[in-house]
């Protein structure tokens, strides 16, 4: 288990100082696939480098299984990294690359050879042991980088956008492979990515980061269906953010009302919002279209645009109150039609900010 306790990281001094991380606190559970997700510049890679020891925190501490590691040099941390550029040693063969960590730990040559063989099998690269790394394709280099980082059996494996250099097909394949490796080895994986699809597909837990702060931590389902803020709702998947009025709380749920229609009991990201205008996240695929006169309709609008996407059709509906929202349906009305927007109240999420 990794405990990130109030970690701050500042680059530079005085006026040129950049706050890369602002008092970040996180707990990464043992043997889980944990993803740090956010746009570039959000501090996710800095946090990874702090866990690896390539940078030292300006404030706060990092603990691994209760032991403080925040200020140890990288070679004293039982943590290994798969680098974005792989950083395979160009003057060594595949086998020597994989065995490097074990050799540095002073393991017996016979142990090193045995583990290297096991790792080669694990990443399905048996035939390539004697190759030089510059003779490998990107996907193969990726596997070697993984094997090299896993060989010393670290407590934590850090992965810095390792799939970003691969083409789409290979990326999908490696996503499955990474999941499999995590399950097989039982090692805690900390995965950094800006790709929300990747994060949703692979993670046990996701921490969404923005501007040096953790916005929300949770399972992919929780992050997707219960976003805390407009940033998270917008960053993860396609979403509509619609204004509504908060009337009161009832049994931990928020009673809200849209431009028209009945009062609804929605999920709320916070139970301490003041009554009045709030923002509500509404996923396009949870919306059902109904007649504009239907008393269940929460708002009305006209279909402005229709895009066929195979399994579903994406509609843009211009609301009578002004904004446009996106809707995904299987039996689309024709553009220009006046429609009512309805939604299961359980699918609505009142955002905290």
């Amino acid at each position, binding site marked *: 288990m990794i405990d990130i306790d109030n970690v701050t990281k500042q680059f530079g001094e005085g006026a040129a100082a950049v706050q890369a991380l602002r008092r970040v606190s996180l707990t990464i559970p043992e043997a889980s696939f944990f993803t740090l997700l956010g746009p570039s510049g959000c501090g996710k890679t800095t946090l990874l480098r702090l866990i*690896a*020891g*390539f940078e030292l925190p300006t404030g706060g501490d990092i603990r691994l299984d209760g032991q403080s590691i925040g200020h140890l*040099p*990288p*070679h004293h941390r039982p*943590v*290994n*990294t798969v*680098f974005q*550029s792989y*950083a*395979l*040693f*160009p*003057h060594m063969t595949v086998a020597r690359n994989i065995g*490097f*960590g074990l050799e*540095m*730990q002073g393991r017996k040559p016979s142990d090193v050879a045995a583990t290297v063989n096991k790792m080669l099998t694990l990443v399905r690269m048996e035939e390539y042991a004697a190759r030089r790394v510059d003779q490998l394709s990107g996907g193969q280099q990726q596997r070697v980088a993984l094997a*090299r*980082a896993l060989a*010393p059996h670290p407590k934590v494996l850090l992965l810095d956008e390792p799939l970003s250099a691969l083409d789409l097909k290979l990326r999908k394949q490696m996503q499955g492979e990474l999941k499999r490796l995590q399950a097989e080895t039982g090692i805690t994986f900390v995965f950094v990515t800006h790709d929300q699809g990747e994060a949703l597909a692979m993670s046990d837990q996701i921490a969404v980061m923005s501007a040096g702060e953790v916005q929300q931590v949770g399972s992919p389902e929780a992050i997707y269906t219960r976003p805390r803020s407009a940033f998270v709702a917008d960053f993860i998947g396609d979403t509509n953010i619609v204004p509504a009025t908060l009337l009161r709380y009832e049994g931990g749920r928020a009673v809200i009302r849209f431009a028209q229609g009945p009062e609804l009991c929605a999920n709320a990201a916070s139970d301490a919002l003041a009554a009045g205008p709030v923002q509500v996240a509404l996923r396009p695929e949870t919306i059902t279209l109904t007649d504009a006169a239907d008393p269940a309709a929460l708002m009305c609008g006209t279909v402005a645009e229709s895009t066929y996407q195979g399994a579903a059709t994406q509609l843009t509906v211009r609301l009578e109150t002004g904004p446009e929202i996106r809707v995904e349906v299987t039996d689309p009305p024709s553009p220009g039609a006046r429609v009512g927007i309805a939604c299961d109240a359980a699918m609505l999420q009142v955002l905290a900010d």
Partner: protein
Amino acid sequence: MARRSTKPRELRRQPLFTWVSWCVLGVLYAPIAVLILFSFNDNRAVMSWTEFSLRWYGAALENEGIRNAAVVSFKVAAIATTAATIIATMAALATSRGPGYPGRSAAIALINQPLMIPEIVTAVATLAFFSILRQVTGWTGLGWLILAHTVFCIPFAYMPIRARLADMPDTFEIAAADLYATPWQCFRHVTLPLLMPGVLAGAMLAFVVSLDDVIITLMIAGPGETTLPIYILGQIRRGVTPEVNAVSTILIAITVLMIAAMFTLQKKRP
């Protein structure tokens, strides 16, 4: 149209370009060509060609003065090169790895500066400084000459090593540290092997510079410490002999081989 002359590749189309080039190359290499040619001349008189012969090479190799001078030269060059290369490698690491520190660019300038100082100035300064040290310590011997050579070889060795290091991303070293390599293991197993072409290039440059140094050696060398260039200089005073031609040709051959090897090594990029 006005731009045409600014393109470097258009230079070759300029009138007289080829002619001027050949003239410059001629001026540069004609004297050396003559020297090499006459080192194979079977005649004591330097000015007239009789027939091809290797007799002066034989004579040079049998000449005890030349042999002693060669031994001194290679001993000095070998030790000075080794020491200078080790120091230059450490200097290159200190000036291009790790976090920056105040005075880093000043340090780089200070290491390179001796290249810009006229050698005669360095020579006189070294002579004055060493005579004080010699007097204080009472030490004599080849060590002083080796020390002087080591010092002036450092910036020559430093240049290619630092250039290579600057081209080398530090991700490999970071990866090694991540894989439990101590700083020394990281240097030994990752930095040094990747830096090797630069180190060898620096060493060869230092070796060549040491091998043909005259001015500083002339000032520092004591009796019995005559190096090859100094010996040749002494012989020339008594007139050019074919033996000197032969020795010079051997020196040229060694130098050319070293420089060629250096360029080949430098082409291998990390």
